[in-house]
């Protein structure tokens, strides 16, 4: 095959090339160690390594670790082995495009609607585009959105995150009291653990002297946070983003999303040790920050995709938004209802909850209220911290 990359003459051999390939994968975000390189080498030795298809499949089985990796792998493979060594440029393009993900229908259905071949999955529906006040067509709206890219570093201070972490940890702890349905051995408990009694009595020659008990252990609640970063929320973004970042860092099972006109999962980006690097990655992800808000569409998308795998009956979904929605209120209500069906509890924290009379917000919030377990005002870290008793009652 003529497309196969020609390596330099001084290239020491296949093993070195494979090591180079693994480094190439690592640079592109796949988590691979030395051990994987050894496994890859062994895997190639049990297939016909000269056969392109076999080598590709074999390396894929070894190197991919999740659905995303598996979807990107073919492009990365082509870039290294089949592109005459022009690695970088190809990756930047292909890697970013990605392939349709495991989360099926909705994302894929939108690909067709996306504007001008961009890679933004904009939920540009037929209705409710007045978020971008000007604009008669979609193209205008999209340009406007790109212009509104904002640097989050201006907004969030790494020091804030530390403080927010404390608040978030306390809030998370406050709602960790959902009981499991299964019982476990414990010193005090409502029922006797018969199996343990028998086991303990072996030590005393068959006389049941000790009576271990069982109770339902407390199990961690999973927090999922959806943070609105649309234009109307810019003022509060500082507080809320710090809170979200703190929460993710405090709680290993928490999950976080940003939304404005589209929805982005930011959990991975936030799980970084360095707060400054977190902000950099977040800035890259939140392209379109400060744009219009489509709460209904985003919640609907969330309920249909991510919620299916990550939201369970033991989840608490926290929505941080002012409720200023350009979608019709019914849409938001329907999305919340769908989300509620997964058995989770939903909390809505609104920085504007004082302004009851403001019609556009009042309408949306009125539609949302029946589906919420807790609706509370919050616009500073202090007010978030004050919510602890409310959270404990959930």
């Amino acid at each position: 095959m003529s497309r196969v990359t020609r390596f330099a003459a001084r290239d020491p051999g296949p093993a070195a090339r494979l090591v180079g390939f693994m480094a190439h994968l690592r640079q592109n975000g796949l988590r691979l160690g030395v051990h994987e390189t050894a496994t890859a080498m062994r895997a190639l030795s049990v297939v016909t390594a000269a056969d392109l298809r076999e080598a590709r499949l074999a390396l894929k089985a070894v190197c991919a670790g999740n659905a995303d990796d598996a979807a990107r792998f073919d492009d990365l493979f082509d870039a290294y082995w089949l592109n005459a060594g022009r690695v970088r440029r190809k990756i930047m393009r292909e890697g970013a495009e990605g392939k349709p993900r495991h989360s099926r229908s909705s994302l894929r259905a939108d690909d067709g609607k996306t504007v001008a071949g961009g890679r933004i999955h904009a939920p540009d529906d037929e209705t409710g585009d007045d978020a971008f006040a000007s604009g008669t067509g979609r193209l205008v709206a999209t340009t406007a959105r790109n212009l509104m890219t904002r640097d989050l570093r201006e907004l969030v201070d790494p020091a804030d995150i530390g403080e927010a972490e404390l608040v978030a940890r306390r809030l998370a702890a406050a709602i960790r009291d959902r009981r499991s349905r299964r019982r476990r051995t414990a010193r005090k408990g409502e029922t006797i653990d018969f199996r343990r009694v028998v086991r303990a009595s072996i030590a005393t020659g068959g006389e049941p002297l000790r009576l271990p008990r069982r109770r339902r252990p407390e199990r961690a609640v999973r927090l999922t946070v959806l943070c609105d970063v649309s234009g109307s929320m810019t003022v509060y973004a500082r507080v809320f983003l710090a809170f979200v970042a703190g929460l993710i860092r405090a709680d290993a099972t928490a999950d976080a999303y940003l939304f404005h006109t589209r929805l982005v999962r930011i959990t991975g980006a936030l799980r970084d040790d360095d707060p400054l690097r977190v902000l950099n990655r977040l800035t890259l992800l939140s392209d379109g920050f400060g744009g219009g808000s489509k709460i209904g569409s985003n919640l609907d998308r969330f309920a249909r995709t991510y919620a299916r795998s990550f939201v369970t009956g033991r989840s608490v979904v926290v929505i941080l938004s002012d409720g200023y929605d350009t979608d019709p209120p019914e849409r938001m209500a329907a999305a919340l209802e769908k989300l509620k069906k997964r058995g989770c509890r939903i909390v809505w924290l609104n920085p504007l909850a004082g302004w009851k009379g403001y019609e556009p917000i009042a309408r949306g919030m009125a539609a949302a209220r029946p589906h919420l377990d807790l609706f509370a005002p919050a616009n500073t870290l202090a007010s978030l911290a004050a919510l602890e008793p409310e959270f404990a009652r959930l």
Partner: protein
Amino acid sequence: MTETRRVAGTGPTAGPVPPEPRGASGDWTALGESFAAKGYIASPELTMALHIALTLSRPLLVEGAAGVGKTEVARTLALVKDTRLIRLQCYEGLDAAHAIYEWNYQRQLLAIRAAAEGGETGRSVESRIFSEEFLLQRPLLEAIRQDTPPVLLIDEIDRADEEFEAYLLEVLSDFQITVPELGTIAARSIPHVILTSNGTRDLSDALRRRCLYAHVDYPGREAELAILAARCPEAEPRLARQIVGFVQALRREELEKTPGVAEMLDFAAALIGLGVNDLAADPVVLQATLATLLKTQGDRAAVPLAVAERLAGTAG
């Protein structure tokens, strides 16, 4: 207890026996063919992953949506290898006593009582009641104590707690289990381990790194036709094309629960059982058999008769 005794039966030469070496490198296609012969049409990716997992005796993690046949991979592998399938269904709260081993306390008690009447000494009673005879094997222990390598299916690992996942890692890397009263039990043969996950939570990186990975997606049109032909040979080619076309079209609709391969096979069986030859011919029968594909009230409402007819008309 610090003393480590060898368990009777593991023998002095014990030590993991590697699975039989496979022949030349080209035989991964042969593996795919033997899977097909047992009625499982595996994608090239899955076949290759299985081949490497078997040759290098590494665990294989299979991920994918519900109903794409993840569990069936292990079943078919057991058939192909003509070996036992040992299944560990994971659930929240699964602990060592249910996954690895447990002492049979009731029998131990009876033995103690009997010994007391017979005047046996404490020492000998102790060594007797903590022996193999009183050990209840759970799937993980059972799997490493087989003479021929079995297929160990750890189903829905994402449902188990994180603590259990960590413990499992240890078993999967060393293939030995320590019972304090008995000593360390080393594997007689290394089982073929298949783990499945639905993605209800993110698995730890450590576990992912220990395993080979294969992602199973809904099959394409041709693959699904082949599955239908393998599982339901009595379906006529025309009807088979219609069924597959209909189900594939249905998967593109926005549904709460997308029908999987198993649902497609149920649908085919229902149609054949009712003697239907043409999907578009009888809307009433079509509507009735839709129950095998659409499992929620919302989905039934989302695909009214008119839509179903349109899909059936264009299918095939």
